């Protein structure tokens, strides 16, 4: 029997052969040249825009004035910069916890809405997400200015005598980060909670657990994938934040992202900057690995 050129022979689980149209063979069934051809577009992108720049940065981080040097790394371990790293990590941590505390109840509310209201709710959460991040941060900055709407309202109500200085503080950066990351926290949580079987809570209650214990022993463990996903999505980008730190913190709230950027601007020290970038990447990768270990294969679709 002649095999049509657009059909391939495949083998079923029991060893019997059958034909499949060319196009729907799985990756595993493809061989050699076909495999290479399919991977070319994605592979090219990854290499050109990720691996190559990464390699360049790694290269730059160990060369200064044409000489091999580990100065860049040494400088990164100076007190000033260690403090900067620590502060950035701490702020990200606080951001994550605060975002979690705000988002969990919101996600619960959304998950318990009648079916027809859920998609609109998700839509509402995502709308700010589609607005340009810079624009959103500027809007927040505008709100919190000394002459901004919040201060004006408080002054006119007589609650304060002088405008509150909210901007150019670490607090402002926190607010900016929390606000910016809320969709990243709410949506994975909602995804986990939507699948949650609320009868579990009734069962826990029936067996003697009050609301708090039912939450800790049943609800939290079962929504852990969502919590972890949201946490990583919030924590990792926040460490290296640049725009938020710049707009909300001015010059007063220095974080590692700004420090690195500074090294690539005037007074440039690319070696140093690259070294710090790589170190930051290592830290971030470490946290991401922890997530994958703890997640234990229970992934939430992001």
């Amino acid at each position, binding site marked *: 029997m002649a095999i049509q050129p657009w059909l391939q022979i495949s083998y079923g689980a029991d060893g019997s052969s059958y034909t499949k149209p060319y196009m729907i063979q799985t990756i595993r069934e493809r061989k050699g040249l076909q495999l290479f051809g399919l991977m070319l577009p994605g592979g090219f992108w990854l290499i050109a825009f990720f691996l190559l720049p990464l390699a360049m940065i790694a290269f730059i981080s160990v060369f200064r004035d044409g000489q091999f040097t580990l100065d860049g790394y040494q400088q990164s371990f100076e007190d000033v910069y260690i403090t900067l790293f620590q502060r950035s990590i701490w702020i990200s941590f606080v951001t994550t916890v605060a975002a979690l505390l705000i988002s969990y109840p919101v996600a619960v509310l959304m998950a318990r809405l009648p079916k027809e209201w859920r998609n609109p709710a998700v839509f509402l959460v995502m709308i700010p997400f589609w607005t340009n991040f810079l624009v959103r941060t500027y809007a927040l900055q505008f709100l919190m200015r000394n002459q901004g709407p919040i201060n004006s309202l408080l002054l006119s109500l007589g609650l304060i005598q002088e405008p509150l200085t909210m901007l150019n503080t670490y607090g402002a950066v926190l607010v900016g980060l929390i606000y910016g990351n809320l969709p990243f926290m709410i949506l994975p949580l909602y995804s986990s909670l939507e699948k949650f079987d609320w009868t579990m809570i009734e069962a826990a209650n029936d*067996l*003697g657990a009050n609301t708090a214990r039912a939450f800790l022993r049943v609800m939290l463990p*079962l929504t852990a994938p969502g919590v972890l996903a949201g946490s990583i999505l919030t924590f990792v980008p926040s460490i290296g934040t640049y725009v938020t730190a710049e707009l909300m913190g001015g010059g007063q709230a220095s974080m590692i992202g700004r420090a690195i950027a500074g090294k690539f601007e005037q007074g440039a020290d690319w070696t140093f900057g690259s070294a710090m970038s790589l170190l930051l990447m290592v830290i971030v990768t470490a946290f991401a690995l922890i997530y994958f270990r703890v997640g234990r294969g229970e992934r939430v679709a992001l």
Partner: protein
Amino acid sequence: MSDFAVEMRDVTKAFGDVIAVDHVTMAIKHKEFFAMLGPSGCGKTTSLRMIAGFEQPTGGEIAIDGKNAGNTPPFQRDVNTVFQSYALFPHMTVAQNVAFGLEMKGTPKTDVVRRVSEALDLVRLPQLANRYPKQMSGGQQQRVALARALVNRPKVLLLDEPLGALDAKLRKEMQVELKTLQREVGITFIFVTHDQEEALTMSDRIAVFNRGQVLQAGTPLEIYERPNCRFVADFIGETNFLDGKVTDVSGDFATIDVGGRPFTGRVNGDIHAGVDATLSVRPEKMQLAEKQPSGPNTYEVLVNSIGYVGSDTRIIVALGPRQLDVWEQNSHSTLDPNYFFRPGEKAWLTFSRDNALVLSN
């Protein structure tokens, strides 16, 4: 110890405009296997949930072992529930699931281990202690749910459609097992079902619900042989209904005129001469004969069809404009060529007035 394990005293539950439970009063005895039976949406599940504490009555009160439960939350009631979906905790092993209630009470570790092991022996699943719920079959999951509830030694066990998710064969097995379990454990079981056969087989007493009200509560025999209204007679088993007007009432019996033909049956309900009523007689209580027998309730009928079901024969006959079902047990060999009536033949239908009921509409 009070007289009753659970009492519902004039309990009403309204969800907005919908009245799910309508002034229900019921008393369930200690160590009773009690069924709440009825079609979907009749209020039986809502009643069960109120006993468990998941819903609060809008009127009336629920007493558990004599004490008004008030708005005590479920975790403070000495009552445990087996849910329809089992609701086993997927992130815990079977042993951890069963131990949960004991841990909530602060039982010491050694006792927990012992009692979990006893509970698993009780439901005959000792070897699966370290499995996860998703690794088990539906029947096994149900047993874990039972163990998880019973290990706490509650005063009352509530079961919400426990056999609904099981296949027919497993269901029959579990009916027997649940009954045996209840006797072994010696506590009150209250279960909700829409399957009347199940209720008849397993329960000591049944409460028949419809539209939020309890229409009748009694033993399976009482419910089956003496239904007090048309709904109960219809919902439980099969029956023939003949509508007509009551012409005479004397003592326990009444005569009802159905399209010109008088029938006599036991009185059940508000029956006096002149009212519209229904005669209810079950198919297995009727007999067909070739020759006219004596006695009341005897009429000539036309045989319409014969249905052979192996152990019984189900015959549909016509009495004037009405069709009636007659069931006869095949106590003799059906291979006899003259055994069956043939469609189109005439026969004599009769039944005892003891086996018929005149019900008010």
